[in-house]
């Protein structure tokens, strides 16, 4: 192994790598916007748990939260920021490098 190349695990971002938060970014990456309810059901979380993780990601500037209405019902819309998309891309790339490094050599 090349000692000059930093270990891929060092490229993993603590904010993004957390299980639920990585799931949130993955779901949001394929759409312009997604409702809170869809994300909650998709990741099988409680309202409180999801809100806590969303706050962390919002504070890190990785997603935007917009309150609005869908018809007459109040609705919370979530959108990934450009920084959030880049963070997910970097995380996936780091994971792929890590998998390649851990794979047994033939």
């Amino acid at each position, binding site marked *: 192994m090349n000692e000059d190349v930093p270990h891929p695990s060092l490229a993993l971002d603590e904010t993004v*790598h*957390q*299980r639920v938060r990585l799931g949130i970014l993955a779901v949001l990456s394929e*759409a312009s916007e997604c*409702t809170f309810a*869809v994300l909650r059901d*998709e990741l099988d979380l409680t309202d409180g748990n999801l809100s806590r993780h969303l706050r962390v990601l919002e504070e890190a500037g990785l997603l935007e939260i917009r309150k609005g209405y869908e018809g007459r019902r109040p609705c919370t819309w979530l959108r990934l920021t450009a920084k959030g998309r880049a963070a997910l891309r970097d995380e996936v790339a780091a994971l792929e490098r890590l998998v390649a490094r851990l794979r047994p050599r033939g």
Partner: protein
Amino acid sequence: MTTESPEQVLTEVRRLRRRSKARAHGGVWLPVAVLAGLLLLSIALYTSPFRAPHEMTVAVPFWAGLPSEQRDPTLSYAFWFVGTPAAFALIAAWYRWRVRRVGVRVGWHWALAAGLVALVALAVLAAVPVELPRDVPLGTLTADQPSLGSVLLDGVRTPLLPLAVATVVLGVAEGSRALVAAGGWVALVAYVQCTIGVAGVFAVLDGSRPSSFARYDTRPGPLVLAMAAPLVLFAATRAVRAPFRSGAR
């Protein structure tokens, strides 16, 4: 995921993205079917879409879409300038309904906005006073050829381009390279046919100088079918293959 191996984490991320993609883009088939339908309906605007007439009178701009004799230029104009916004309204209603049902939004409004801007630009461009060639009976085609500038301008003065623009931007919004290519194909065929004609391309390939009259050689019916084919295929494939099944995990 922190207790899972990196490989398991990656697999889970990919699964979530796949599901999210199917949910977000599962409704693209209907807008594409509407655009393809509008394109195919335009065949009815030509007096002789499939058979070569003995004589024809062609009005510029080509309000039917392609250079050929139209049943009525006013009808062609109304078809595109009423039909395109009507088709866009239908697409907007579909996406709004889907957002309420699925809870995921894609950037469809950019596609419709781009299509409408292109339609308005076409109206403005057509209103600019330019010296247009007179309607020319095919029997007297030995008349002077129109200038290169006016022929190249004819390529963008077709109501097929706003439809192509909307399709390309919709492809970007829906993350589909195939749809971007299908929209590009419509634009390419429309532009080529309205300038030197598909027959003119073969003349260029043969090494000879194309005449602007070559654009009247190919009948519009088969060309419209060729333009619409990728859209129809795309819509049919997506309608069958990718409806979002909320219970599928």
